[in-house]
């Protein structure tokens, strides 16, 4: 029993267990996705988050001690964001011709995404800090947290909402785009990247190189446009 306790202390202290659990949950999530015939609704990020959240809650493990191990995976988000330049460069001949369309569609779509979310929350009498946390939810996590802080939201609630929006967009976005008959892969990529940032881009890259490049571009443009415009609009409307 004492030995078992020592093993538990070791596992809780070292990052190894959390890191291994994260990778195993991801592999299980990919298996599940394959078992669902890669249906868009079967999103591996959702599966992996659900598995790990359930493990943490059932085992009574603190999120902070989990993150101490998982941060090695989290750290790679930075280099991966930089790496999005590669598919963009590969598709540059195609992207360059539609650069202005991309800017116009992404800026309009990004503001529309924020406006609809805020309007719904206001209509349902959500608390002001919850409304402000919702506004930047379609922007990539670090930018969204920065915007939330500036407009009086709760940055860490925003982080959860950003992930939720990404999973929603990646899982249901392709079905919505089919429904409104958007078949152009460039337009589909722009729409997914604007509303569902990196999680949507991960999905788009798996479907088509063109959609992936446009999605990564839309994510970057929306981060830029929202960071510049949202705080200004917010001050004008609610300031």
């Amino acid at each position, binding site marked *: 029993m004492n030995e078992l306790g020592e093993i538990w202390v070791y596992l809780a202290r070292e990052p190894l267990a959390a890191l291994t659990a994260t990778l195993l949950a991801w592999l299980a999530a990919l298996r599940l996705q394959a078992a669902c015939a890669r249906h868009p609704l079967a999103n591996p*990020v959702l599966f992996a988050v659900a598995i790990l959240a359930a493990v943490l809650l059932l085992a009574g493990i603190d999120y902070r001690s989990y993150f101490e191990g998982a941060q090695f995976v989290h750290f790679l988000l930075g*280099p991966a964001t*930089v790496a999005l330049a590669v598919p963009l460069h590969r598709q540059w001949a195609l992207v360059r011709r539609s650069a202005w369309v991309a800017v116009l569609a992404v800026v309009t779509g990004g503001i529309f995404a924020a406006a609809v979310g805020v309007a*719904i929350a206001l209509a349902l009498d959500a608390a002001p800090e919850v409304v402000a946390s919702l506004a930047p939810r379609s922007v990539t996590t670090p930018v969204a947290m920065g915007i939330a802080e500036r407009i009086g939201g709760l940055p860490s609630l925003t982080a959860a909402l950003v992930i939720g929006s990404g999973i929603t967009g990646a899982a249901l976005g392709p079905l919505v785009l089919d429904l409104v008959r958007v078949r*152009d892969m460039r337009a589909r990529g722009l729409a997914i990247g604007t509303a569902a940032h990196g999680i949507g881009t991960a999905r788009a890259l798996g479907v088509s190189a063109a959609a992936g490049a446009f999605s990564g571009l839309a994510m*970057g443009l929306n981060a830029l446009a929202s*960071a510049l415009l949202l705080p200004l609009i917010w001050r004008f409307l609610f300031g």
Partner: protein
Amino acid sequence: MIGALATLLVCQLAGEILARALHLPVPGPVIGMVLLFLGLLLRRRPSPPGLAATADALLGNLGLLFVPAGVGVVLYLPLLARDWVPLSLAVLVGTLAAIACTGRLAQWLLRRIP
């Protein structure tokens, strides 16, 4: 592969420094993406194969990289339980409406502007 990883990290680091020095509202990695893209454009050649392979390997598992932050949802379960109606409606309807609107607008513009 190490060279490619170093390239990515150098771009990110330069992005972080620029963001802080110039008080830019955009995070370092996004500026790093712009820097790497400009660098690739200036070479006037396809991306180096090593860099392309490393980028594809990272981006092929992009979803995994969001998992640790996503698990953070456990911290907000009480707040989410209290405000779940406005939050879930805003996330669901807002995201899907934005996708439909952006997609239609982009497709319409792409047909008109050659």
